[in-house]
């Protein structure tokens, strides 16, 4: 890692709404500047996207944004980020994505002028490269439409650039199912890091060319996949917690290349990125239960600067359209945090403490999101001279913390989980400091038909 020292060293400074390096947006949001804002994400109901339905698709997006912003105005919202996480066709045929942004942005502008509500669009194209297997991370033609959508989408009104990039996923998918922590570390700290560098250099350049905000990435496809699998009791929760920690060294590369935050909502590595780099972050928890259940409903907002619902279909609930209902739920959560920020340090500290104690000892994945532990593990993540060593050291520290919480009786772990602890520790300890040696060690164990080393500059 390029970072050698934490920007936030004191856990009590890791606080919602406050980031050492706030990000200002054109319509006047100051993310991390003392207030938490809602980030609303929504998607289409069950439907096809093609020539004959595309007008209907546009209708869904404009109707939803209008409905949500109406509600936000009604609730005196301080500002909203609308995340536009594209569906495949919208990146594959960038003109569709661009048109949607244009129309949504007109509405945002309208609400800004008429009601003073500041709203920005986060543009998150798909990483199409995963459609080719083995993936051509650097030479794929599919990079073209992605980059086109970034470029023209910014012009159309996308102000914050993000992506859930997938470098290393071809290895991680199988490693997750096998609970192979070395495989995961290889996927994230070797392949992921290298792909992030390649991709984010491009994105940051694009953003700079138009004066836009290169926001950040998310290891969703790795660590949230692990979390979802763990919630289904498919893999151990202790394993999923380590995957989360390892994902930090991969996602931080966006910042090393110049991204400034807010990172993407589904990246629970956010608190680490905030501690290490000082950027503001987007998080999601209980109010994202529409998109995934989680063991971190409250603790996830302990140091959030944006608070998101991850995604909800534009379907009708008893009250009205689901995105409008979720807009309301987010706004009330956010109000609570903002009231606490306004009321002063005692109030905000107590609210954070409650959010943390609510979940901390219910799941190792919650444990590693508690500010104290984030700082302790972040420090470990900075030790070592390679991303591989960083990741391993961070994971070992997390393991210590998990074991300590168990042996002290604070966190109860069932036998099924406990048997994994020594196995995971052995595996982690067998990982060398040096990237090259690690690659050598791993190659024989991996199915090399699934990935192409040269596509990662190896």
């Amino acid at each position: 890692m390029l970072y050698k020292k934490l920007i936030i060293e004191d856990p009590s400074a890791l606080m919602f709404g406050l980031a050492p390096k706030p990000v200002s947006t054109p319509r006047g949001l100051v993310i991390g500047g003392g207030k938490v804002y809602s980030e609303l994400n929504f998607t289409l109901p069950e439907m096809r996207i093609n020539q004959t339905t595309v007008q209907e698709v546009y209708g869904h997006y404009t109707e939803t944004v209008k409905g949500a912003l109406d509600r936000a105005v009604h609730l005196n919202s301080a500002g909203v980020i609308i995340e536009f996480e594209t569906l495949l066709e919208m990146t594959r045929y960038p003109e569709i994505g661009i048109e949607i942004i244009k129309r949504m942005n007109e509405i945002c502008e309208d609400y800004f002028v008429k009601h003073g509500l500041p709203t920005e669009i986060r543009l998150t194209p798909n990483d199409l490269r995963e459609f080719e297997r083995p993936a051509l991370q650097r030479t794929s033609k599919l990079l073209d439409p992605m980059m086109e959508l970034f470029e023209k989408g910014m012009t159309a009104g996308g102000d914050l650039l993000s992506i859930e990039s997938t470098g290393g996923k071809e290895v991680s998918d199988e490693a997750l199912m096998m609970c192979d922590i070395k495989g995961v570390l290889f996927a994230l700290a070797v392949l992921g890091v290298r792909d992030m560098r390649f991709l984010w250099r491009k994105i940051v350049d694009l953003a700079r060319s138009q004066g836009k905000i290169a926001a950040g990435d998310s290891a969703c496809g790795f660590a949230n996949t692990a979390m979802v699998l763990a919630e289904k009791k498919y893999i151990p929760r202790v394993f999923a917690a380590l995957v989360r920690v390892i994902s930090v060294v991969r996602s931080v590369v966006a910042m090393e290349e110049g991204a400034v935050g807010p990172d993407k909502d589904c990246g629970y590595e956010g608190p680490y990125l905030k501690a290490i780099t000082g950027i503001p972050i987007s998080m999601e928890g209980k109010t994202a239960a529409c998109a995934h259940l989680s063991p971190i409903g409250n603790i996830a907002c302990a140091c959030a600067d944006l608070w998101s619902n991850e995604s909800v279909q534009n379907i009708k609930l008893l009250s009205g359209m689901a995105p409008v209902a979720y807009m309301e739920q987010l706004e009330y959560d956010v109000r609570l945090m903002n009231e606490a920020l306004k009321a002063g340090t005692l109030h905000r500290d107590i609210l954070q403490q409650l959010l943390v104690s609510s979940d901390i000892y219910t799941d190792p994945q919650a444990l590693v999101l508690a500010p104290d532990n984030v700082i302790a593990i972040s420090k470990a993540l900075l030790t070592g001279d390679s991303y591989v060593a960083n990741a391993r050291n961070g994971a070992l520290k997390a393991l210590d913390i998990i074991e300590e919480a168990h042996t002290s009786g604070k966190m109860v772990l069932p036998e099924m989980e406990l048997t994994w602890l020594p196995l995971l520790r052995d595996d982690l300890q067998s990982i060398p400091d040096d990237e090259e040696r690690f690659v050598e060690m791993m190659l024989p164990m991996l199915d090399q038909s699934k990935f192409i080393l040269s596509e990662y500059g190896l």
Partner: protein
Amino acid sequence: MNKSPSLAANFVNKLNTFYFSIMEELIAKILEAVEVGKVDQKSPFPPQMRGMEGAFELTTRAIEAGVPPQAILDRSLIPAMEIVGRKFSENKIFVPQMLMSAKAMGAAMVQLKPFFASGAVKTKGTFIIGTVKGDLHDIGKNLVSMMVEGGGWTIVDLGVDVPAERFIEALTQHPGAVVGLSALLTTTMVSMGEIVSRIREYSSDTRILIGGAPVNADFCRRIGADHYSPDPQGAVNYLNRLIA
């Protein structure tokens, strides 16, 4: 056993009982190896069985000892995977343990292959599975295919992003196979409907099973598929009911 056996008969009998018990023992051991996921002797998993024979070696021995291959399949592999499947549905083991069992079963199957070819052993049928066009999510699909395989079916996994043609092509190669479709995106689940119609056009009596997070029984009815299951165990149960 005879009530008053001659000496010779008695001996043959004892020998039979002896062989029988050896065979029974092997069948039980293969079952155990698959259940705990012991692939072969050199496999380090599970730690407590390090160095012991695995499904591979035990199956070799069983065949040499004259255990009928069909018995190995029916009385070791399938019951073992059934236990594993049940434990998994009851959240008593994690996926990697199930995967190791599947691997162990695979190691045994390698030995049984020739007998399948000769017709001496029969699987329950063929299950063609794939994630529908436009969709790359495959973790759920892989779990289903693993469990169905464990249930004694031959699997044809078409991977992800699979268009109708590829399913039909596979059906031409495996007539009578059951088809499984997986989708995780609300935008791709609609292609399920199209694929179902296309398959029905090609062969109206093919059984089609669907699954994936956004799918449900109601949707299944609407698109005219035959069954929806929320999980792998349900898929195995449905398939077994089909041939019951």
